C-alpha cells in the first residue's frame, strides 16, 4: 500500500507540473509577443498590430489565469505530498521561492493593469505595464528553475544525521545547474510559445488563404521561436555536459549507456533492455557520447552498471530524451529554413509546406517541453534532493493518496478541455475566420491617448 501511495504522490506532482508548465511558458513568452505587437502598433499605426495585440491579450488572460491557479496548487503541493522534503529543504531554498513570489506578484499586478487598463492609463504606461509583465514573468521562471536546479545539484548545507546544518541560502542559489537550466527553460518557453502561436495562425492561413492579420501574427511568433530554437542546440549541449559531470547516472539513463567505457557511442533512438543490459536497434556513432560529454573521444563515460539496479531511473528517461533532442533538431531545421528565406526574400516562406511544418512544430514543441522535464525530473529519481534525500522517504503519511491524485487528474483534464474550448471560441472570432469584422474595431480612446 505504501508503495502505491508513493507512486500516487509522485504521479500527482508530475501531473500537476506537466499541466502547469504549459501555462507557465505561455506566461513568460506571450507578454513579449503582446508588447512587440503593441509597440509596432504605436510606431506604425497599422490597425493589424492593434487587433493582434488585443487578440493575443485575450488569449493570454485566459492562459495566465489557469497558470496562476495551477501554480498556487503547486506551491502547496510540494508540502502536501512531500512534507518531509519541505521541512528540510524549505530553509535552504525558500529564498528563490520568496523572490519568485515577488516576481509573480509584480506580474499579476501589471497584467491586471495591462488587460483591463486600456482606457485607463496612457498608451506609454500601457506598453510599460506589458514590459513589466514580460520581465517579471521571466524573473519568476528564473527563480523557480533555480529551486529545481538545487534539487538536482544541491549546495549550501551539510547533512548531519537527519538534519541539514550550516545552511547557506545564497550558496544554494549558486548551484552549478542554475545557469544551464534557466537558459534552457527560457529558450524553451519562447520556442514553444512561438511555435504554438505560429501553428494556430498558420492553420488559419492554410485553411482560409492569405490574411494580413494572420501573416503578421505568424511572422512575429516565428521571430521569437526561430532564434530560440537555434540557440537551444548549444545550450542543450551545455546542459548535457553539466549532467555528465554532476549526475552521471542520469546521463547513463538518457543515453541507455549500461557499460562503463571509453569511446562511448552516441545513440540515436534504440530500445534499452534492462535485463540484458543492452540497447537494441540504436544508431550508434562511435565515441560520440564521450566526445559530447567530455570533449574527448577516449573519455570514460560511467554506465548504469556503476549504480545499484534498484536506483536506475525509468527507461522513459531515454525515450523522452530522444524525443526532445529529435524534435529540437527538427525545430532548428525549420528555423533555418524560415530565416534563410526571410533574409533572401524579405518575407517568410508562404508555401503550404512551410505552413504545415509550423503547424506540426506547435504541438511537437510542447511534447519536447514535457519530455525535457521528464528527463530532468524522472532522471533525478530516486532522489528528491540529488544524492541526499530519497523521494520515498519524504512522502506524506496520509493514506489513500489515490483520491487526491484522481481528483486533480480529473480536474485538470476537465480544465484542459474547458481552456481549449474557450480559446477555440476566441480563435474562431479572430479576423478572417468567421468572415466578420474584427471584434475590436472601435476603441477610439486608445488612439486618442486615454482619458486625459
Amino acid at each position, binding site marked *: 500500500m505504501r508503495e502505491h501511495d508513493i507512486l500516487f504522490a509522485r504521479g500527482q506532482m508530475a501531473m500537476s507540473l506537466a499541466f502547469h508548465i504549459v501555462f507557465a511558458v505561455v506566461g513568460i513568452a506571450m507578454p513579449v509577443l503582446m508588447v512587440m505587437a503593441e509597440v509596432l502598433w504605436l510606431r506604425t499605426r497599422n490597425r493589424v498590430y492593434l487587433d493582434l495585440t488585443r487578440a493575443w491579450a485575450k488569449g493570454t488572460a485566459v492562459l495566465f489565469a489557469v497558470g496562476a491557479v495551477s501554480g498556487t496548487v503547486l*506551491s*502547496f503541493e510540494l508540502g*502536501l505530498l512531500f*512534507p518531509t522534503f519541505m521541512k528540510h529543504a524549505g530553509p535552504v531554498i525558500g529564498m528563490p521561492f520568496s*523572490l519568485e*513570489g515577488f516576481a*509573480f506578484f509584480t506580474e499579476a499586478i501589471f497584467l491586471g493593469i495591462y488587460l483591463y487598463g486600456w482606457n485607463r492609463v496612457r498608451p506609454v504606461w500601457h506598453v510599460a505595464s506589458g514590459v513589466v509583465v514580460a520581465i517579471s514573468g521571466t524573473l519568476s521562471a528564473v527563480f523557480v528553475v533555480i529551486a529545481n536546479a538545487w534539487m538536482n545539484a544541491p549546495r549550501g548545507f551539510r547533512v548531519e544525521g537527519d538534519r541539514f546544518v550550516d545552511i547557506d541560502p545564497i550558496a544554494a542559489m549558486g548551484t552549478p545547474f542554475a545557469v544551464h537550466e534557466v537558459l534552457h527553460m527560457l529558450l524553451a518557453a519562447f520556442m514553444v510559445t512561438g511555435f504554438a502561436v505560429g501553428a494556430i495562425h498558420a492553420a488559419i492561413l492554410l485553411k482560409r488563404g492569405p490574411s494580413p492579420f494572420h501573416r503578421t501574427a505568424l511572422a512575429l511568433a516565428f521571430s521569437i521561436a526561430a532564434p530560440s530554437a537555434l540557440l537551444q542546440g548549444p545550450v542543450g549541449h551545455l546542459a548535457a555536459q553539466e549532467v555528465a559531470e554532476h549526475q552521471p547516472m542520469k546521463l547513463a539513463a538518457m543515453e541507455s549507456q549500461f557499460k562503463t567505457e571509453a569511446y562511448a557511442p552516441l545513440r540515436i533512438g534504440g530500445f534499452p533492455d534492462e535485463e540484458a543490459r543492452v540497447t537494441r536497434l540504436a544508431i550508434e556513432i562511435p565515441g560520440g557520447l564521450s566526445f559530447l560529454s567530455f570533449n574527448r573521444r577516449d573519455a570514460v563515460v560511467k554506465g548504469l552498471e556503476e549504480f545499484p539496479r534498484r536506483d536506475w531511473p525509468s527507461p522513459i528517461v531515454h525515450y523522452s530524451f530522444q524525443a526532445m533532442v529529435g524534435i529540437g533538431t527538427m525545430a532548428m531545421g525549420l528555423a533555418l529554413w524560415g530565416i534563410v528565406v526571410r533574409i533572401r526574400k524579405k518575407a517568410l516562406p508562404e508555401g503550404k509546406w512551410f505552413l504545415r511544418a509550423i503547424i506540426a512544430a506547435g504541438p511537437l514543441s510542447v511534447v519536447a517541453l514535457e519530455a525535457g522535464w521528464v528527463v530532468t525530473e524522472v532522471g533525478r529519481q530516486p532522489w528528491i534532493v540529488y544524492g541526499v534525500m530519497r523521494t520515498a522517504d519524504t512522502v506524506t503519511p*496520509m493514506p489513500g493518496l489515490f483520491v487526491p491524485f484522481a481528483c486533480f487528474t480529473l480536474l485538470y483534464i476537465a480544465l484542459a478541455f474547458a481552456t481549449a474550448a*474557450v480559446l477555440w471560441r476566441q480563435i474562431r472570432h479572430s479576423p478572417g475566420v468567421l468572415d466578420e469584422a474584427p471584434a475590436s474595431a472601435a476603441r477610439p480612446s486608445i488612439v486618442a491617448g486615454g482619458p486625459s
Partner: protein
Amino acid sequence: MYANLCALAALVCLLLYALLGGADYGGGVWDLFARGPTAKAQRATIEHAIAPVWEANHVWLIVVVVILFTAFPAAFAALVTALHVPLTLMLVGVVLRGTAFTFRHYDSKRDDVQKRWGRVFAVASLFTPFLLGTMLGTIAMGGIRMVDDLPVGGFFAPWISPFPILVGLLTVVLFGFLAAVYLTNEPAEEAVTEAFRRRALASAGAMFVLGAVTLAVAKSLAPAMAEGLFRAPIVLVAGGLSLVGSVATVWKRRYGAARALAALSVTCVIGGWGIAQRPYLLPPDLTIANSAAPEVTLRLLVWALVIGSVTLVPSLYYLFRVFKGEDALSPLDRPDPGTTTEAPPAVKGSRTGSS
C-alpha cells in the same frame, strides 16, 4: 527577533489576503445570492470590481505559504500533513473559482454558458473561504498536534468539529460583509448600491450572531484561544467598536468611512487572533521559536521581504489607483507617505462614486 518578524510578516500577509482576496470571495458569494430586478447589474458590478485585481490579491496567500515553509518549516510540515484533506479541497476551490471567473469573462456571452461558469465561480467562492476558515479554526483551538509525524486525531476529526466549522462559517460571513461594504463604493446605479447596502447590513447581523456564538463556545472548545483573546481586551473592544461603526456608517450611506471601518474590524479580528496565540504558531506544541529555520535564513527572508516590498507597495498602489482611485494617469505624482500603503486604498476611504 527575526523569527518574530517573519511570523508578523506571515500574519500581515494573511490579513491582506483576508482584506483583499477575502473580499473577492465575498463578491462571488454575492454573485451566488444576486436576486431581484437588479440581479444582473449586481453581477456586472461584482465582476467589474474583481476582474483587474483578483489575481494580484490572490498572491498574498502564496506569500503566506512561502514565508511559512521558509521560516517555519517544522510548523509548515505539521500543518500540511494534518490538514491535507481540507487544504486539497480548498485548492480545488481556488482552481475552480479563478478559472470559472476568467472563463465567464472571456467565453461566449450566451446565457447558458455565462450561467454555467457563473455558478461554478459562485459556489467555489462559497466553499473555499469556508475551508480556509475551518483550518484557521483548527489551528486556533490547538487541533494540530503531531506524534511520530502523524496527526493526533487522524486526518479528519480535528477539523470536522464544531469550533472549526463555526470559524469557517464566520469567515464566509466576514468576507461577504467586507465585499458588500466594498461594493457599495463601486460605481453603480443607486438601486444596485442599495442592494449591496442591504446585504452589508444583513451579513453584519449574521456576523454579530455567529461571532457571539463562536466567542461563547470558545471558552469550552478553544479555552487557550479564549483566554488569549481576553489578554488583549483593547483589540477586542476596538474590533467591536469599528464593526459597530462600520454598520452605522453603512446605515447612514457613508460608504467610504464604512469601508475603512470594516477593514479595521477585520484587522482587529486577525491581529487579536495573532496576539492571543503568541508565542504559538500551532498551539499547543509548535511555537515561533521552536519551529523556526536557522537564523541566516530568517535574516535573508526578512531582507527579501523588505526589498520586495519596495517594488510591491508602489506597484499595488498603482494598481488600486488605476482601478479604484479617481485619477488613474500618473503613478508617480503622489507617492503615498503613509505607513498604511500596504493596505489597499480600500481602507483609505477615497470614494469613487458614480460621479
